[in-house]
């Protein structure tokens, strides 16, 4: 038997999308390449588009971090190949300060917005909402398509900013004015910044179109019997994510619009009393640079939860499925996500404790910030209790879900440090902050995303990812993530500031040269491990082991009642009716009871 034959020996015939409900989606019989793969209105295809575009940006953003970590780890070495790939920015094989800051800024922007917002909730909201609530597609498939293409356009504009003469924006992903408003203060704030704002504005449009659609679909298009309290936690999480996005992204856009005015039309929203060495005193007076920070963080903080909540939802679902045990405290999970969503709007100024904020106002934000630890703690304890006395299957998805919980604990606890203004006044903008948010938001959410990809890959492509590569991917990434970010806490304890190109002249910070080299080396290795994952991903799309049963993980949720390769419209014939919540695992001695199974007379009540 040939290898291929072994791999695909048990292929079963499965329904393609040509046999489904005629009255609904007749026109999809005549799909062309363009309507199927490019301007598709099928939520599943849009999800894949978001995912693969997100991967592109993840590779680019990740590679940027490898480049700037080279500078931090090996400030005295030269890498002649740098000049080949980044030209004048890497003259003599040495990354210039300008390039370093541009890389740091683009890395942050791209990872936060393009990868962990669009790539994460764009992918899984699109894929899972219709499938798990029992709908044939989104409320507005056309808007959904636009949402992707605005994102694509945002990406093109951002990409083009890398190639302008004065370089891409280099003032940090938070884009604080006046630095971001004044081309004379930094070359990156010239054309690069205009393109950055345009890209971000397009991105806001994309995320609003998507978010409104997600909300409308969840509220209005649930199948018969799917009450809100029967929704899988993934859907609850994506719902709160969408609400956060819809309410906070417009505020960011307003902040950007004022910034555009300040940059181009002579207004003074953010500018006052400025003397730039190269051009002298500016005419602007009466603005407040801090206003932008309020507008920015009014999105910026909810953004953290926009990134984190989908990961939490997927992790809850995957933990429960693979522990073969109901999620512990379903209502508490929903309640804590609701609390997090509300509090997310009330804590933004904890990013601004040292801006000269009114101390009393600061104290309110301390209180509200630390309050978030309570629902977060509930979630962690509930996840751990879900594992307790379960029967755990370590699929790669499950491993990443457990890794997520571990990282969420590690990174979440340091939030208690930074949320307390009296500690933040020391640790603000040090490596401690980098460690905190990379672990809790960056890596943890990335783990949630990986968990989701491994878990739902069979639904997306009708094939499996290679398991063993999945295990290698998980363990190396898990170990690597801790090796990279854990020691950074100590650099923070030394007061080492972020966004420094070189520490060699600092008596207080230069003692970490060895550690920096170590971190850079591990980061590079971990980056290549991710490339291996991508290889697995694309290889498996075409050559992976084929899925032979509709429900490979023995899961309860609705997406596993669709054909292995569902067409546009998802279900053949009627959409199934739902009779129970999504977490009847191990009930009455039964391994699992799908949501579509009617409640039996003799079933126990809990």
């Amino acid at each position, binding site marked *: 038997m040939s290898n291929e034959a072994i791999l695909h020996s048990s292929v079963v015939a499965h329904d393609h999308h040509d046999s489904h409900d005629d009255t609904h989606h007749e026109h999809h019989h005549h799909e062309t390449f363009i309507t199927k793969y490019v301007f598709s209105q099928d939520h599943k295809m849009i999800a894949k588009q978001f995912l693969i575009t997100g991967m592109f940006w993840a590779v680019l953003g990740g590679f940027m971090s490898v480049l700037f970590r080279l500078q931090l780890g090996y400030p005295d070495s030269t890498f002649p190949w740098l000049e080949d790939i980044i030209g004048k920015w890497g003259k003599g094989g040495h990354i210039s300060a300008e390039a370093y800051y541009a890389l740091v800024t683009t890395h942050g922007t791209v990872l936060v917005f393009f990868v962990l917002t669009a790539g994460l909730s764009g992918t899984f909201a699109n894929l899972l909402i219709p499938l798990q609530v029992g709908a044939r597609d989104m409320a507005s498939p056309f808007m959904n398509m636009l949402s992707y293409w605005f994102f694509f356009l945002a990406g093109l504009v951002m990409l083009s900013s890398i190639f302008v003469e004065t370089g891409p924006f280099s003032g940090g992903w938070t884009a*604080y004015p006046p630095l971001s408003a004044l081309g004379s203060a930094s070359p990156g704030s010239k054309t690069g910044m205009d393109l950055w704002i345009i890209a971000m504005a397009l991105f806001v449009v994309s995320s609003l179109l998507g978010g409104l659609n997600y909300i409308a679909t969840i509220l209005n298009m649930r199948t018969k019997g799917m009450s809100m309290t029967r929704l899988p936690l993934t859907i609850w999480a994506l719902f709160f994510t969408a609400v956060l996005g819809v309410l906070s992204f417009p505020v960011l856009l307003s902040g950007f619009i004022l910034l555009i005015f300040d940059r181009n039309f002579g207004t003074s929203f953010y500018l006052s009393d400025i003397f730039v060495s190269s051009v002298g005193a500016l005419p602007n007076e009466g603005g407040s640079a801090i206003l932008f920070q309020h507008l920015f963080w009014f999105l910026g903080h909810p953004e953290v939860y926009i990134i984190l909540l989908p990961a939490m939802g997927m992790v809850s679902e995957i933990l429960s499925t693979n522990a073969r045990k109901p999620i512990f405290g379903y209502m508490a999970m929903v309640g804590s996500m609701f609390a997090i969503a509300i509090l997310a709007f009330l804590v933004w100024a904890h990013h601004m404790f040292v*801006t000269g904020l009114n101390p009393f106002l600061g104290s309110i934000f301390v209180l509200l910030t630390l309050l978030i630890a309570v629902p977060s703690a509930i979630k962690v304890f509930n996840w751990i209790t879900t594992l307790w*006395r379960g029967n755990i299957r370590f699929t790669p998805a499950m491993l990443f879900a457990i890794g997520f919980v571990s990282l969420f604990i590690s990174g979440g606890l340091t939030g208690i440090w930074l949320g307390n203004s009296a500690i933040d006044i020391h640790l603000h903008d040090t490596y401690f902050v980098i460690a905190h948010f990379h672990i809790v938001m960056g890596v943890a959410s990335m783990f949630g995303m990986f968990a989701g990809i491994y878990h739902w890959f069979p639904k997306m492509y009708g094939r499996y990812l290679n398991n063993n590569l999945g295990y290698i991917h998980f363990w190396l990434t898990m170990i690597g993530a801790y090796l990279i970010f*854990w020691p950074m806490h100590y650099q923070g304890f030394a007061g080492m500031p972020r966004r420094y190109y070189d520490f060699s002249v600092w008596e207080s910070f230069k003692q970490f040269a060895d550690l920096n080299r170590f971190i850079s080396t591990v980061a590079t290795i971990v980056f290549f491990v991710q490339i291996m994952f991508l290889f697995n991903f694309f290889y498996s799309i075409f050559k992976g082991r084929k899925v032979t049963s509709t429900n490979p993980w023995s899961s309860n949720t609705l997406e596993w009642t669709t054909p292995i390769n569902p067409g546009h419209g998802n279900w053949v014939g009627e959409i199934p009716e739902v009779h129970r919540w999504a977490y009847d695992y191990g009930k009455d001695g039964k391994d699992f009871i799908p949501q579509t199974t009617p409640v039996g007379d003799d079933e126990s009540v809990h």
Partner: protein
Amino acid sequence: MSTVLVIAVAVLVFLVIFQIAKASEYVAILKGEDRSRKENNKINGFFMITFLIAGLIGVYYCNELLVDKTLFAQPSASVQGERVDDMMKLTLVITGIVFVLTQIALFVFAYKYQENDNRKVFFFPHNNTMEIIWTVIPAIALTVLVVIGLRNWFFFTSDAPKESAVVEVTGKQFGWIFRYAGEDGVFGKKYYRMIDPANNSLGLNWRDSADINIKDDPAAHDDIVQDQTMYVVKEKPVKLIINSRDVIHDVGLSAFRLKMDAVPGTPTTLWFTPKYTTKEMREITGNPNYQYEISCDQMCGNGHYSMKGIIEVVTQAEYDEWQAKQKPAYYAAFPDKDPSNQQQAVPVAVDSAKKVTALSSAKSISTASN
């Protein structure tokens, strides 16, 4: 050449891993999916517990290796910073306990409850008592941290004591400018359009300028302006009035465990009481090159990383000696007004009483230094 070699090795390693992974997938299918899944489960369960143990040892080892390089290895240089240190230690204990317990629970459960054909899953969808307990306990712990934190926060942000020295700190791309009030104890007015990089880096109102409605402010005539190094007195509270000339900067005082942004157009303040002179700190740290460094902690442009200032903490006597040598910046801009350049000069056109005192005291300083 070596780069090519590295890439070649990387690709090779990658291919080997991929081939092994692929081959073991074939083996798994031939063996039967169920059996291979159970084998993988055992391996990963073992890794879980190994990761936990290695991880906890790693956390300990990392601490051993690095803690001496952090500020925990030296006392806080300010009274305020001692409170920050105490709070960090308390928070470390609380979060540390939670960290260890939850990580142990997570990985031990993962290991212990790995798939086993004989285990019957415990159907345990919720338990109100447990959920209330783990809502209330974190809430109490956090209340403690909030109360202590806010007491310190209000202490840090309270008004500086009356006897404090006052220094104005101004950030610019990429350096720091310090201003002292001079003999009169009053900071003269300034306006950013008066800035002249050559001799008036802060834009002090040293002359009438009708077109922008500025009047000469005599209180500005005796202000002392210096770049890069700030002098403060040990055990005497010092209040910083923080400004920026261009973009947002941040006065980062890691040795003192404090920082505050410098925002153009909106002055901020920060006060602290230094505990050790720079010399004492050199002995404490055993580093003869030790300096109290001001680091810019807010991204301010391409030279951000080089925006360094120095704080010299000295005794009162040393401070007095230093102060006596300082000349008001006004005289550097207007040498003809410098009393030491015109021995006989007596102020003729006197604008205000203040100017007389300012000039005469400046004169007395300059004579004293001679």
